[in-house]
């Protein structure tokens, strides 16, 4: 890889990393912000529900207090009236929730006042206002017994069993949003009023709900949860309130699907915007980096073209100089120069042919569909025979050390041959006369190896990293434009393999082609 290409890739990687890291940071910060928003909106819903629960609790508490006030007023107004019983009967029209009020004194049998208990009655006759806990009457009505002393009439009390039907209706009418509802529990966690229709059966059956245990917690002074899965099986946000007297708990619940709908929509919107922004930033970043990379690539191509032009100009210029000198000898007309002229022309034609052949190889693309099975052992021997005349002229021995087993690969035979011949010719050119160039074949895991060893001068270590770069020939100038090794790499890369070099100055070099094994069939 060229130095420019390497720096271009490095730049692209850095740019991609910057965009990714920026995007990640934006996403993290955005997520934190959205989470803070979510928590705040949920808290806001809970606070609203808590406020409603408190208000509902006050209404229920005041309802009971009002009944007691009413009963006290009636006790004071009617206790001494002559037609008390009739007036008490008429109460059903004006205060149906008061139930059947009765005036009692020490002569009244508690049996006549069922279900009001005798101890309640006794306390009231002693001047104490008393009330029972909630209970379910024989007719399955929710009830509470109350007795109040009649003002100004010692030893007389007004007692009744409150029919809390109206109280239950009050709770049922509490609504929050479209789906929010209220539930009311007594001190034991028993549901006595339900705004949610599906739970209303539990009011009558006495079945304990999920919320019952939370209501008991509240009664014992602990904080109940404000988000939980309700008895209806859905996630709800809840606000709780506790009444001191009577010891009831009220909860107003709203399914999160409604409670957090607005904030979820806002969060979704913000999230979508953030994602869009991130996507747009990434897209712009990638687009810009592509432009930069394209510009760099174009610049690199011009530089490459410049180097090619420099190389061609230099080499062709040298060829022109030799041809001019040869032409001058021919012009001299001296027959003694004819052999020199002939030899020069032959040599220059051969050099120019190789020059053209190198460029022809460059223009030929590797087509993997044209690959055929190739046994590298047989292939290496064939290449040795083709290079033998050249090696013999240079006084260098060519040898092949095949592998013990067949080395099948898939390859374009012509191009692979060109690449191998290039390595062989380089090795022969670098080798002193009388030395040997060895083609060594082997296998390492699933890879076949073809190594060309020479015993030449070797390659300076500082040149090894760029040995396969285009137009950086290590040979004498005027002979090559430096396309041979780059072309070898191009061909080997296209075969899915790789080419490498090891060299020791003064001892020689080893060029190794690795190709993936592909046994036939």
């Amino acid at each position, binding site marked *: 890889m060229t130095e420019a290409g390497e720096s271009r890739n490095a730049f692209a990687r850095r740019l991609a990393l910057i965009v990714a890291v920026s995007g990640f940071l934006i996403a993290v910060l955005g997520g934190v912000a959205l989470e803070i928003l979510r928590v705040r909106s949920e808290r806001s819903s809970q606070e609203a529900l808590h406020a409603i629960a408190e208000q509902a609790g006050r209404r229920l508490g005041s309802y009971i207090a009002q009944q007691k006030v009413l009963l006290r007023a009636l006790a004071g107004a009617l206790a001494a009236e002559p037609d008390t019983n009739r007036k008490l009967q*008429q109460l059903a029209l004006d205060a149906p929730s008061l139930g059947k009020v009765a005036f009692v004194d020490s002569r009244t049998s508690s049996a006549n006042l069922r279900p009001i208990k005798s101890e309640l009655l006794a306390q009231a006759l002693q001047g104490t206002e008393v009330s029972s806990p909630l209970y379910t009457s024989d007719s*399955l*009505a929710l009830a509470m017994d109350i007795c109040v002393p009649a003002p100004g009439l010692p030893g007389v009390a007004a007692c009744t069993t409150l029919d809390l039907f109206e109280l239950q*209706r009050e709770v049922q009418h509490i609504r929050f949003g479209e789906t929010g509802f209220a539930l009311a529990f007594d001190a034991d966690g028993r549901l006595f009023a339900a705004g949610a*229709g599906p739970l*209303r*059966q539990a009011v009558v059956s006495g079945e304990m709900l999920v919320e019952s245990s939370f209501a008991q917690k509240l009664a014992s002074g602990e904080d109940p949860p404000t988000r939980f899965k309700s008895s209806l099986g859905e996630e709800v946000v809840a606000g709780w309130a506790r009444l001191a007297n009577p010891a009831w708990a009220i909860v107003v619940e709203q399914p999160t699907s409604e409670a957090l709908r607005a904030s979820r929509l806002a969060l979704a919107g913000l999230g979508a915007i953030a994602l869009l922004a991130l996507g747009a930033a990434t897209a712009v970043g990638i687009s810009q980096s592509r432009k930069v990379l394209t510009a760099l690539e174009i610049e690199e191509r011009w530089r490459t073209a410049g180097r090619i032009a420099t190389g061609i100009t230099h080499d062709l210029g040298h060829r022109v100089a030799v041809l001019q000198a040869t032409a001058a000898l021919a012009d001299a007309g001296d027959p003694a120069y004819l052999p020199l002229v002939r030899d020069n022309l032959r040599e220059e034609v051969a050099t120019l042919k190789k020059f053209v052949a190198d460029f022809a190889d460059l223009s030929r693309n590797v087509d993997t569909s044209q690959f055929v099975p190739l046994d590298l052992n047989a292939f290496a021997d064939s290449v040795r025979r083709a290079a033998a005349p050249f090696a013999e002229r240079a006084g260098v021995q060519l040898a092949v050390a095949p592998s013990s087993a067949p080395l099948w690969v898939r390859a374009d035979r012509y191009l692979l041959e060109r690449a191998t011949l290039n390595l062989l010719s380089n090795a022969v050119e670098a080798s002193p006369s009388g030395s040997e160039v060895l083609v060594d074949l082997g296998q390492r895991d699933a890879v076949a190896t073809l190594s060309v060893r020479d015993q030449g001068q070797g390659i300076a270590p500082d040149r090894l990293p760029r040995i396969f770069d285009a137009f950086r020939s290590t040979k004498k100038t005027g002979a090559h434009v430096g396309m041979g090794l780059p072309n070898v790499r191009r061909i080997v890369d296209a075969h899915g393999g790789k080419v490498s070099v090891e060299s020791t100055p003064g001892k020689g070099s080893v060029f190794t082609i690795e190709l993936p094994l592909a046994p036939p069939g």
Partner: protein
Amino acid sequence: MRHLLLLAVLAGCSRPAETSKVQLRIAAPGDLAPLGPQPLQSYSAIAQEWVYEPLVRLDAEGSTKLALASRLERIDSKSIRASIRADARFSDGSPVAPGDVVESLKSFNLSAYEKDGAVVIESEAVLPETVLSRAVISKTASGTSLGTGPFFVAEQDASHMLLRRKVHLPDHIDDVVIRSFPTPREAFARTLAGEADAYPLIDSRQIEFFEGVPRFRVLRAPNTNAIAVVFSTRRLDRNTRLALLASLPGPDLARMAYPNGCSPMQWESASFHSLPPGRPLNIVAVLKAGSHVERMALAVQRLLGPRGGDIEDLSYADHQHRLTTGEFDLLISTPIVWPQTDMLLLWHTKSPLLTQWYSNPRVDGAIDSGDTARAMRELMDDPPVDYVCLPERLAVVDARIKNARIGPFGVFETLADWEIAR
């Protein structure tokens, strides 16, 4: 070989799968009177529509459609000839004979006789076809009252009644169990608790408790009966009754008895008549019929002031007896007001629908001549009743029932046709 073939065929036949029976449990407040064809002052009356059939039924517009009769011919304004359906059968399988129809109609104070295979029905008052919808056909066999309806009584006592469909119909109700509870409140609570699948004629305040409960569906329909204060024509003279009509304005009574609302009756308020001083007037009612009855009685007592007497609680049987004998001053009742022809016939001296002590020839004459407006004016000029308002009819039924509705006349009249979603 033939035996093998037969065995193979038999082996291939499969018994049809038993489909599970559908039972509907209906909650009812108060004891259940034994079911019979005559009008009942008990919740068991709702079962009459499923066990017995009349010659005709009413549709939603108040017109008649043939039921047990295959054909009706009007002879004159006071007589009708009815042919009976050839396929009509009592629950014991016996065919419906014209003689059975004649005896049934006579028990409803209609005069009837058999002629040429048909039944001729006569009345001393004008006889609209709608009257025939109130006379169900039955016969007694082995001490049991049999009807031609789709259901028959399998078991009954004061606390429950089991009615069974004669012929199974897929996805329809097979058995109806009417369960009695001591009070309307308990009937409501037990239904909400899931111990019943339906509760007819529920109080309007209680209906709120069923709204939003997935298991139930609330049904609403206009009423065919009004709530009214009936005056005893035996004990109270015309002037007193006129004064009572003026002292007990319907809207005021309705407001007190029905805080949730009650449709007003569509006629002019009575002109002023002062209620003369006198003895307190007693008020009788079946208080266990519902809190609205008690509130109505209290409202009457309040509006009468010093003349408002004690409120007496009656049983259903006592209520009917008092109505017939006139042994009361004021009685809270629910007389029919729909169709209007039948409403007026309640007060015709010779009408089969007259159930109480009243006779006014001017009213009779107006009814017989078909002059409804004049009949109403004459009635209000010698009033036996103060119609207060029309409370909505409310019921709750199992939500799985697809086509449940109230009416057109009876509460669950169409129960035999109700389909259950599985």
